[in-house]
């Protein structure tokens, strides 16, 4: 018998993505193009699965990242918080090719935190008195109007970490952390793309950002594009 936490390191992106199937709900870390699992995102298009439900804050931008999934026509539904200037999503939403569910960003992440922590639903004040209430139970608790929001589970989460050890303990870099660790907790199978792969023990237990219990497969990808969306700088004095 082999437990779920035996050998997690995979030799290739294709091997790591082999369990994907048509129609799955896939959680993908990143805030815009920051902290994207770039090689896994590209690998899903090559893998050829379709009819996916994508959960992501932005679903790509500037034709990059998850916008490549939209262009490949493999998504039937997107659950996100912000579209902004993501033209690939705007056009497909307008044509009806892709169904889009927009949710407040804090609610989006809390729904996944709840899923990972075994909480099926929770009441939140965010969105009270707005269109977000539509079709949901609304109550007053402690004098505040609150909305019942449900946990959001994924079949698979694709996560980008800066460092992973072989058990899957993770560290993240700066604001590339964003949705990544929360999504890792909310999926039945979490696949991690790490910049650096380390031996167990190389990350001090007190310095682990996400414990390896939430990680099932690891691929080492040393090179990343790390695209800028808005490069803003000031002149040197």
């Amino acid at each position, binding site marked *: 018998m082999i437990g779920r936490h035996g050998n997690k390191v995979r030799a290739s992106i294709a091997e790591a993505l082999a369990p994907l199937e048509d129609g799955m709900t896939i959680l993908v870390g990143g*805030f*815009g*193009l*920051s*902290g994207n699992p770039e090689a896994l995102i590209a690998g899903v298009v090559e893998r050829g699965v379709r009819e996916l439900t994508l959960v992501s*804050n932005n679903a790509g931008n500037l034709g990059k990242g998850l916008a490549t999934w939209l262009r490949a026509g493999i998504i039937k539904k997107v659950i*996100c*918080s*912000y*579209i*902004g200037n993501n033209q690939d999503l*705007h056009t497909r*939403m307008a044509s009806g090719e892709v169904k889009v569910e*927009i*949710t*407040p*960003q*804090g*609610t989006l*992440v*809390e729904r*996944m*935190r709840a899923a990972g922590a075994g909480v099926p639903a929770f009441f*939140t*004040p*965010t*969105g*009270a*008195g*707005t*269109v*977000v209430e539509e079709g949901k139970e609304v109550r007053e608790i402690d004098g505040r*109007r609150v909305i019942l929001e449900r946990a959001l589970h994924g079949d698979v989460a694709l996560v980008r970490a800066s460092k992973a050890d072989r058990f899957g303990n993770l560290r*993240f*870099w*700066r*604001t*590339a*952390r*964003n*949705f*990544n*660790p*929360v999504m890792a907790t909310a999926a039945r199978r979490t696949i991690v793309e790490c910049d650096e792969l380390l031996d167990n023990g190389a990350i001090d237990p007190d310095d682990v950002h996400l414990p390896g219990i939430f990680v099932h497969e690891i691929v080492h990808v040393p090179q990343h594009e*790390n*695209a*800028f*969306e*808005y*490069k*803003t*700088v*000031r*002149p*040197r004095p």
Partner: protein
Amino acid sequence: MTWTTEEMARRAAQEIPAGAIVNLGIGLPTLVADYLPPGHAWLHSENGLLGTGPFPYEGDEDPNLINAGKQTVTVLPGGSTFDSAASFGMIRGGHVDLAILGAMQVSETGDIANWAVPGGKVMGIGGAMDLASGCRRVIAMMQHTTKTGEAKLVPKCTYPITAIGVVSLIITERGVFEPLGAGKGFRDALH
């Protein structure tokens, strides 16, 4: 009297107490940071950064160190990074003292509309609803009227609402205003 956007930002900066945790919304409110003395307040970016610093020097920019507007930034000594759940927990949990947000309409009961234009392209909600309903104090910073001259300080919002009854102060190019409640309009807090 008509303020420039710089004067509006300078006035908004006066509303930030020393040692406060502040979230500056995308657009006009980001200018407020330029008028805060160094070390005066801690800027929170909802993508997971507290202690947001100025734009990096040319050549030092890191695509994985950005603010909520996806601009490259720096992190100040004492700053920290964290995941989105912790970040929105800070907002929803009332740990962020003040949000200065752009707005399309604010009503006399303090309702704010700043995420969608009726009939316009849907840009999404992002952190707007969490910030407006979760931060301890909300200031709206906006032009006084629309480009076609319609009032943005209104008895009741006609644009899709972001949060109800949350705005306590409005800063426009015409001054500083307080919503007074249903049927009571706005108080001109400058004159």
